[in-house]
């Protein structure tokens, strides 16, 4: 899922300072699960912004709505009336959701309420870790299902770098060495011989370097 974290109250206060009626929109999918932009987080931020603005003698009226997904027009259209009633929108979705709202409501300022972080998973309660950088050409089959592109600090496709200590990465001792994990995992699934393979330089053409990408599936187009 997409993992995000909330912007600070002072930053959001500054972002909306020129507006008197603001709609906060939560998203019920990824950012609800990562406790950043769901109904509850939006409600807490509404209290905080209202009070902070009142104390600054610049009161703001805040309306809040949480929709199932902000990255789909099907759900976004439910916001139309509320967006009309407000001067600006703060979207508590990932960056894709924020932009989807901005596209759908071209005459309304739409601001991001979160900092979108990465594609990852819940590691333990309230701890999320990055697992994939969406490189567009997945190589997980070569590495026992552990992504060195994302999880090795040096992005080495032919690791390890030799610097790991006690299973931990030399760049950050809090992080496991991706290549140690790959080695163990390949052993566990009987594919240790893959360690002998030289992985050629990665084809980055499908990655993000040339601007925003697009996926078209002809077989599903009408």
């Amino acid at each position, binding site marked *: 899922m997409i993992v995000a974290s909330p912007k*600070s*109250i*002072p930053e959001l*206060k500054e972002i909306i300072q020129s507006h008197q009626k603001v709609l906060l929109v939560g998203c019920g999918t990824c950012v609800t699960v990562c406790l950043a932009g769901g109904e*509850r987080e939006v*409600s*807490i931020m509404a*209290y*905080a912004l*209202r*009070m*902070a603005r*009142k*104390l*600054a*003698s610049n*009161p703001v*009226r805040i309306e809040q709505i949480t929709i199932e997904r902000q990255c789909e027009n099907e759900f976004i259209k439910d916001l139309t009336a509320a967006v009309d009633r407000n001067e600006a929108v703060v979207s508590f979705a990932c960056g894709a959701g924020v932009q989807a709202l901005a596209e759908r409501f071209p005459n309304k300022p739409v601001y991001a309420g979160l900092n979108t972080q990465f594609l990852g998973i819940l590691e333990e309660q309230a701890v999320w870790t990055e697992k994939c950088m969406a490189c567009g050409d997945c190589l997980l089959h070569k590495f026992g299902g552990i992504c060195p592109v994302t999880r090795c600090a040096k992005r080495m496709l032919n690791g390890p770098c030799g610097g790991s200590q006690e299973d931990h990465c030399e760049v950050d001792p809090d992080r496991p060495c991706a290549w140690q994990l790959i080695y163990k995992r390949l052993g566990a699934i009987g594919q240790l011989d893959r360690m002998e393979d030289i992985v050629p330089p990665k084809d980055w053409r499908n990655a993000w370097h040339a601007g925003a990408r697009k996926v078209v599936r002809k077989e599903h187009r009408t």
Partner: protein
Amino acid sequence: MIQPAQTTGPGAAGEGHDWQPQIIAFCCNFCAYAAADLAGSKRMQYPPNVRIVHTPCTGKIEMEHILDAFEKGADGVLVAGCLEGGCHFLEGNLRAKKRIEHVREILDQVGIGANRLRMVNLSAAEAPTFVRRVQEIVQTVRELGPNPIKNIPAQQEQDEL
């Protein structure tokens, strides 16, 4: 960081010698509320300006409940739960503790100030402790002065909506 409104502290508007802070005390059913009840039965004196909200467990108190109290003008909020390790629901009070910490950070960022919110832990038998904790927060909040939210002039209140 937003500076706390200047209208707090000694000499602030609305704070005379007879000013009594409004304190909301969220008390868990199994310990703090029982202690408050016992204090009442024993006719122990404690400041009358404390409104007790009876909750099943401090773990049931949402952060919004506390923020709502401050937005509506409470001068201080006390969250009173069981002793650590003694929660009827095992860890409700430990969860509450983390939430209270978070709300305190929010209050600081907002400009209300973290010191207006406090969590205390006590057992059902500790009526004197309950009374003392209430007196302490009343004293702290009296020194801080009224919740600055209340000092926004009426004109702006009208402009708000």
